[in-house]
């Protein structure tokens, strides 16, 4: 780990003043569950680390007139156990509770979950976001069983965010603040498929801090289903988050977002469209699963993820309606 300056600001303006205008020289530290490993591997070599854990306004979960505000420093465990979230935004609680490591649940933050870097093993070994060697992509013919089946390249990593799919399905937005002002970005626009090594996989700018997540009022049934190889520390193989607006037993509108299948949480619009006006049954859930994976482009070793994503959609839908049925 390269030596660095450690800044411990008490206020948001102080923290923002410490950021750089380009990626690289400065990193923001919250839970540290990702940043520390990036630094130990010399993938990030910041000259300055800005610890934001002391900034009080970034904490807490509040109900607002518009819905729910989740501070960037709220831990995944708080999200998993918060009664309001469990009752009204089940998909979010599911996603946070699905993180099998108690250490990561208790240290990892909501903001960090959205801003963490990809887990792609080529990226983590220094071959870049697009995973190339001598200009040639390593993933399509390489070891790609955990890689993307959507997005079409040239990035093949999968977004590691646990909350991302659920937030997009719920229509949430994130607040990004810089010294010059703030902007609200829909969660769906926050994640970006990089086309080159210079682009980040999120819309955050280097001089900004993600301060809070805003989730609109519920009136939905939601659930997240993760297909996991194991119960101990691990990443899911495929995820589906669903959010349904209901009129009685009838779906008025639906959003289905897949996780761990693309460089961004992947909205399956066709599945959502298919569900509108229907009731959720084993048959409609199955059909939605099928629609969700239409157009998947599996690589040499990950065709199985198409099946997993399909099943995840079906099970998330059935779980969502069972939850408050």
């Amino acid at each position: 780990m390269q030596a660095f300056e450690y800044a411990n600001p008490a206020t948001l303006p102080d923290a923002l003043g410490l950021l750089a205008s380009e990626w690289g020289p400065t990193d923001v530290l919250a839970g540290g569950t990702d940043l520390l490993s990036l630094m130990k591997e010399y993938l990030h070599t910041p000259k300055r680390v800005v610890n934001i854990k002391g900034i009080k306004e970034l904490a807490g979960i509040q109900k607002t007139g518009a819905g729910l505000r989740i501070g960037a420093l709220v831990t995944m465990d708080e999200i998993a156990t918060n009664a309001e979230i469990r009752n009204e935004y089940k998909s979010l609680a599911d996603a946070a509770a699905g993180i099998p490591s108690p250490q990561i649940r208790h240290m990892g933050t909501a903001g960090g979950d959205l801003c963490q870097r990809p887990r792609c093993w080529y990226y983590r070994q220094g071959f870049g976001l697009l995973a190339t060697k001598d200009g040639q992509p390593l993933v399509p013919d390489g070891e790609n069983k955990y890689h993307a089946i959507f997005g079409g390249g040239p990035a093949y990593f999968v977004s590691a965010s646990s909350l991302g799919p659920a937030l997009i399905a719920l229509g949430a937005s994130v607040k990004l603040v810089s010294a010059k002002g703030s902007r609200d970005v829909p969660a769906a626009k926050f994640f970006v498929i990089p086309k080159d090594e210079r682009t980040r996989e999120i819309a955050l700018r280097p001089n900004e801090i993600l301060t809070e997540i805003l989730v609109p009022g519920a009136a939905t049934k939601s659930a997240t289903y993760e297909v996991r190889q194991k119960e101990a520390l691990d990443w899911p193989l495929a995820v589906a988050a669903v959010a349904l607006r209901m009129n009685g037993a009838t779906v008025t509108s639906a959003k289905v977002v897949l996780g761990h299948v693309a460089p961004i949480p992947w909205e399956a619009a066709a599945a959502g469209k298919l569900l509108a006006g229907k009731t959720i049954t084993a048959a409609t859930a199955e059909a939605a699963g099928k629609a969700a994976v239409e157009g998947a482009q599996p690589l040499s070793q990950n065709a199985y993820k198409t099946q997993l994503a399909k099943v995840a959609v079906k099970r998330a839908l059935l779980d969502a309606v069972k939850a408050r049925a």
Partner: protein
Amino acid sequence: MASAPDYSWPPMEKRKLIGKPIKRLDGPQKSTGRAKYASDLKPQGLLFAAYMGSPHAHARITKIDTSEAEKMPGVKAVHIINPEGTEIQWQGMEVAAAAAATEEAANDALRKIKVDYEVLPHFVQEADLKQAGARGKAAGERVTGDPDKAFQDAEAVSEGQYGIPVITHCCLETHGSVVQWQGDQVHVFPSTQYISGTAAGLAPNIKVPIANIQAHMDYIGGGFGSKFSPGKWAEVCAFLSQKAGGAPVRLFLDRKMDQLIAGNRPSAFATVKLGGKKDGTVTAWESNGWGTGGFAGGGSPPLPYVIDRIPNARQTFTGVSVNAGPNQAWRAPNNQQAAFLTCCALEDFAAKIGMDPAAVFDKNFAYAPDARVETYRYQLRKAADLAEWSKHWHPRGKGASGVVKRGLGLGFSAWAGAGQASQCRATIHVDGSVVVDIGTQDLGTGTRTVITQVAAETLGLPMGAIKLNIGDNSLPVSGASGGSSTVGGVCSSTRKAAMNALVKLFETVAPSLGAQPEDLEAVNGKIQVKDTPAKSLAWAAACKKIAAAGQISEMGENVQRSPGGLNTQGAAGVQIADVSVDTETGIVRVNRYVAVQDCGLVVNPWLAQSQVHGAVIMGLSTALLEERIMDARTGRMLNPDMEFYKLAGINDVGDIVVHLDIRPENDKRGIIGLGEPPAIAICAAVSNAVANAIGVRVPNVPVTADRVLAALEGRNA
């Protein structure tokens, strides 16, 4: 002259400590963190070392420049391990190391070492033998009987392809040591399975006399066969200490380096064909296998496993050289591979002829060594009872309808496990205190506890009366803890040393009890005339009589060739996996895992059960999750971590049911080691259970979602 004392174990009904479920003596130390491992040591002035390996799988080092690294702040020593001109044969192969005031400074220094490589072509994936070309070295074909005719005459022939990958040891404490080289003395605090051998292993490499090397270790965080030698890292650590003017240096590999270079289990792939009768008797075996243990190629698993008297057999095995880290013994070397290939083929044969595999296994146990045939059959019945085989087993793929399918599968094992050469010294002091000195180590298996049980039982004392010293190379020499050889060796040498000391004590106190020494016994903290408690001396009073000599100190030795009935070799073992497979996701969950295991005389059933639990957890992890993933293009191991090198957690292993086969006929055989035996059959049993559940064989372990779904699709296609 009196004849040698009777060392034999007391009869079962007379034992007070041996055979009893006594708590692990160092449990509180370990569970509270008071136990200090070598990697915990922080002596005054400690320097931290970091270890640098090649990023390339195959390359030649053309230039190394350490000048900038040496100038880095906090850096006290830089050492080149493999000089310019060295041909690197795997990623991570050592290049240089640095010691500095902090671990971070040491790692930063390594980044400043400039190394030029001439990159050479590599080969890292052995699963497809066709790609191996000249990298494959076939061992000669081995033929027994007339396999061609036997297959022709067979009423049924089954054939399958199976694979078990390279996995790593994942010791919680990585490989390394703390070393201080001061003047002509070298102090080593290793993480080792062989404390008595540490000095001899290190001496020639650092050119210091064995006599000048002191090695000490209280605890080790896992070895599993990968920590017999001090390792290159201990030697490098010594040189760094010397270069740093004699400061203590801590060199433990980081997880990545540990995964890359500190050992692994060889892979084995094979096509296996069985021919036989419709009554389940196998008459012909044919296997063509390959695998790798690293650059040096691969070993050949002993096939067919256990049932090696099948009258007609032909087999070949090709060792494949890859540019990846070298193998080390992994808890029953070659046996998991052999058990997997044999037991899977046997269940596939049973499926082919539509028979219950339990019946097929029972029949073919006739081919096991004569002395063990009935043991296997007994253990199979016992395991079937515990797993409720008759209730839950169903013909392959013919279970209940529904998405989640349940299945049961079988596996068996064999291991030698005779006691190692071991010397022990038992000393009785005039104040009645007792010291047992033995140059062994406790790998977490309970070695401290069983030695103390044996010494206390022999002397008629409580556990707390024995002071035990282990883990130091100044103590009487004991062997490496490997091959399940420790418990038999150390218990036998301890028994003899304690008994020899006791005989001396009997000689000293006999006159005052008006008896002959051979008429005395030590029980309940007393020396008494046999079965005559009225004629006795309390232990302390008896020991006062040795004032003239000051102490009694006697040696005891286990000689491997003549263990005198105290220990022996040859453990069987039958296991059954009970799994549920989600046929929509391919995820396998373990419901229950039954392990029936003999190991001769069981010194401590709790610790023995704990050994089996540990082995089953480790084995389930390999069956369900673990594999080293190599990248063809870059030559890198892509999962040198504990993130994508997946290990089972406690929620992944299901309910583990252990039955120790402690029948009197096993007890009378003496002690047999238990490290390896229960770790052997698990991949086989799990793979067989999955096949039973879903109706089709998943050829390779670990049985991950992608493999299960591919196998299911293959069937449906």
